[in-house]
């Protein structure tokens, strides 16, 4: 299954500036591993040492938060879009 992973601004340094990356995957976890294979170092920004999605990073399949689907085991199908949405705090300074 070919899915598009949308890369947020804070992680684009790790994808050479690319704002989206195409990967082959059947689940969100596979997509993250495929992303790591293409752009080493990105997985640790998204997942903790146990491979769980970090709590200050939200992952969406299309417009739904995977925490309310099947977490990192959420299946993905051809044409789905995975978005990584990390916490950001800028505003005043």
């Amino acid at each position, binding site marked *: 299954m070919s899915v598009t992973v949308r890369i947020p601004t*804070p992680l684009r340094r790790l994808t050479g500036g690319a704002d989206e990356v195409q990967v082959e995957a059947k689940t969100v976890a596979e997509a993250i591993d495929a992303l790591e294979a293409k752009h080493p170092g990105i997985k640790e920004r998204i997942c903790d040492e146990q491979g769980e999605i970090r709590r200050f990073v939200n992952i969406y399949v299309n417009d739904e*938060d995977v925490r309310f689907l099947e977490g990192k085991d959420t299946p993905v199908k051809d044409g789905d879009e995975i978005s990584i949405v990390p916490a950001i705090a800028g505003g005043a300074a």
Partner: protein
Amino acid sequence: MEINFTEEQLERYSRHIILPEVGPEGQAKLLSSRVLIVGAGGLGSPTAMYLAAAGVGTIGIIDADCVDLSNLQRQIAHGQDRLGMPKAESAKKTIANLNPDVKVIAYNERLTSENAREIIREYDLVLDGSDNFPTRFLVNDACFFEKKPLVSAAMFRFEGQLATFKPHEDADGPCYRCLYPEPPPAGLVPSCSEAGILGALAGAVGTMQAVEALKELLGIGESLSGWLMTFDALRMEWRKLRLRKDPHCPLCSDKATIHELVEYEQPACTWQA
């Protein structure tokens, strides 16, 4: 509601009053509304100015910083003649010039676990445009305890996020901790001012925050509660992502473990990516 507009007010607010969704009742509602703006910087500048122009009767602005030359690239409530002035005071001056109907309360201090509930209690709605995670969690928690709606916005480089939180009004409504349960550890996410930001992004995101705040005060349209809106300026794209109440939220669920304000340490700026 008894409405006694002056001639000048009828003219000043005529483009609001003519809107069926606002009308004289809506304008009177705005004039009697009280809004607290946390942070008088990139986001606080456009929100304070648009809410003031719209005739929001009382605006509280809290910020402990003073105007610095590097702020002027995006913080349009301030100017060259305000360098060194407390930002809350400077914003107050700008608002006084925009609309004399507005009463501004300037707090030249930091929001802390000591003062947060007491200050927030005085307002109908809170806008968060702060620049750090500890303040964002403090604002969220204090709004939850005081049962005040919160319109929260944040930005980074070319990207913005916007959401409305009112778990006290809507049983399914999430809070900021449903989105992010606790602040990220230092170094793993950007929260520092060194990261850079395209100046006008603050206007785009702050103005959307002001639009949502006015809708919330007027009680019109569909609330953003339950959604996370993101803006990517490089792709010129707004998106709405579903934001659900976390049944294990440490603050607003029935499994809550947080029952009073928590003050987090502001981590050192170590983020490098």
